[in-house]
């Protein structure tokens, strides 16, 4: 193995041990939801944001709060409601009548880990304020620009069962999220354990294992993870298959896809695959890393036509066919 890749692999293995410790700490509080916790770690490493879809009561807030405790980062929850204003999220200038000056009051967005609960309940101008901050990693209040803390991770949730009075996120905005996760119910065994843990009235302490500086250092290592040309070609093929399915013998999908994944998808898929390889203790990315994370990266980036909706074909079905057809290196 090349020396630099060997060195990266060794660093990854060492850093991965700490990440596993973080996951163990989270596991003390959160039962099951391994998929959610794993993806939280991916987003944290790859500096991406997550859109979560799941019914209430699946420990989404608890998972994020526990993660923030384990990595010793500031956590803030914002409940999105129809009467929310952008200033309620990013902050505003407050007039002080005593001295006639304006002082800046920073909003709850100035935290490392943000849970934007039910983001589709707030009007589009509030959504835009958040999403712009997510993209730019900075907020302008008045004429002053304030950088957001590092690391900065936003988890936005959408409730799939109550769609009345909601403002669906525009597709262009949804594209800013690295991952979209569908969180499901726990199984019987897990639910029993949840019942035993959570009905005892005891608070389970979570020890901080990491801190923001170490996370940034891990990101540096993650960026150096090697991606072979064949894996890059695989990622490009997957994304192109969503745009030009006919070139991949997927003519059947042509009338079903309105818009395929953007170049941002290629970037996000590569970053997420690197983070996935990091969590598996490898200094290089394999096609399996791409496959494991591919659905979460692509499901909200492939827009289906009315014809697909009429045939009850979702973007998931389309992506499944893409993965089955595109040749794995």
């Amino acid at each position: 193995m090349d020396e630099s890749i060997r060195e990266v692999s060794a660093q990854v293995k060492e850093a991965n041990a700490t990440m596993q410790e973080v996951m163990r700490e989270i596991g003390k509080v959160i039962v099951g939801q391994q998929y959610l916790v794993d993806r939280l770690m991916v987003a944290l490493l790859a500096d991406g944001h997550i859109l979560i879809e799941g019914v209430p009561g699946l420990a989404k807030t608890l998972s994020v709060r526990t993660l923030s405790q384990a990595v010793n980062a500031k956590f803030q929850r914002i409940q999105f409601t129809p009467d929310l204003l952008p200033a309620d999220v990013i902050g505003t200038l407050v007039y002080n009548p005593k001295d006639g000056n304006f002082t800046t009051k920073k909003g709850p967005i100035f935290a490392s880990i943000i849970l934007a609960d039910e983001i589709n309940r707030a009007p589009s101008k509030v959504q835009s304020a958040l999403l712009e901050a997510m993209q730019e990693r900075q907020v302008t209040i008045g004429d002053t620009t304030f950088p957001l803390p590092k690391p900065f991770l936003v988890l936005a949730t959408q409730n799939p069962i109550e769609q009345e009075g909601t403002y669906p996120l525009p597709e262009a905005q949804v594209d800013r999220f690295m991952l979209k996760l569908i969180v499901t119910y726990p199984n019987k065994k897990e639910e029993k354990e949840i019942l035993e843990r959570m009905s005892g009235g005891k608070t389970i302490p979570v020890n901080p294992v990491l801190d923001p500086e170490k996370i940034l250092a891990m990101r540096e290592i993650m960026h150096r993870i090697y991606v072979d040309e064949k894996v890059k070609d695989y990622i490009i093929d997957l994304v192109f298959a969503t745009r030009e399915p006919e070139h991949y013998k997927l003519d059947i999908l042509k009338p079903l896809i309105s818009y395929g994944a953007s170049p941002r998808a290629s970037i996000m898929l590569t970053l997420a695959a690197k983070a996935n390889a990091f969590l598996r203790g490898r200094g290089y990315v394999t096609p399996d890393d791409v496959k494991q994370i591919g659905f979460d990266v692509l499901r909200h980036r492939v827009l289906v036509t009315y014809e697909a909706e009429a045939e009850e074909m979702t973007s998931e079905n389309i992506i499944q066919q893409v993965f089955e057809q595109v040749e794995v290196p």
Partner: protein
Amino acid sequence: MLHFRSLPFLLLLGMILAGDTYAKPTCDVSLSATQSEVDQAVVMNIKIQWPKSEALYAFLFPQVKMDNLQLQTQGESQESFLSDGEPWVRKTFSLTFLPVRSGEGRIRAFTLGYIDPSTQKGGSFQIEDQLIKVHRKRIPKKLLNQIFAGAGTVIGLFVIAIIFFMKFGRKTDVPKHAIDLKAEAALAKFEAMVEARGGKTTKDLLQEFSVFLRNFVTEYYKVDMRHTAIPDVLEDLKALGVSRQEREFLRHLFDILSEMRFSGSGLSDSEFDGLQNEIKNYVSGKRIVQERLI
């Protein structure tokens, strides 16, 4: 002639009646067998019975001495029964002995005393020596017959097998084991792939190895290894009952393939040959369905 109201008659009648109401306890000793084998139990029963109206006797059972025997258990029981309309009591003492060695076993004579606690009247029984002839342990005839029959069958089959081997075994074109033809074909394909290397690069060959192994596992186990990530496929194989050893080996093969193909590293000839042999051995191992002569 005695008149029924005369004094002598009355005295005689009284004696008879008195004799009928008073009966001493009687004792009966029995052995379940007088001939036995080593470790084959022999039971000695001592039965004492008397009219209930007579007394409620208590018994003084001594410690029994024995030769070439081992006392295994000792117990007693008591029961009531009717005899000529009168209630009687029977007390039974049961002793179980195990012969130790072949030869003669002896239960030595002893005295069994009894007493009526209320009147302090009692008596004793003298139990004589009890002898038991002990033989060596023998194999049951039925079992012996079975052993002889089994041995005869085995010898007969062995002779047939030797004849068969001598007549047919030297020929190499008759398969000795049941072969999985799919795996056989896959192995031939793999060997042909290696032979026909031509101008292909090592990376190209490694890709072909990877595709080959995925296709083989997919067809052999009917799982989807072409489109599913390896950890998920290994879980599917676990659900199918594939052994942990085999799953670990497959994981090892794919990890090596991934590292060689995607880590940007070069590959030495020995590493390449080693991987090639491991894949070949794995597929070759799947060829053999069962280890038996056909």
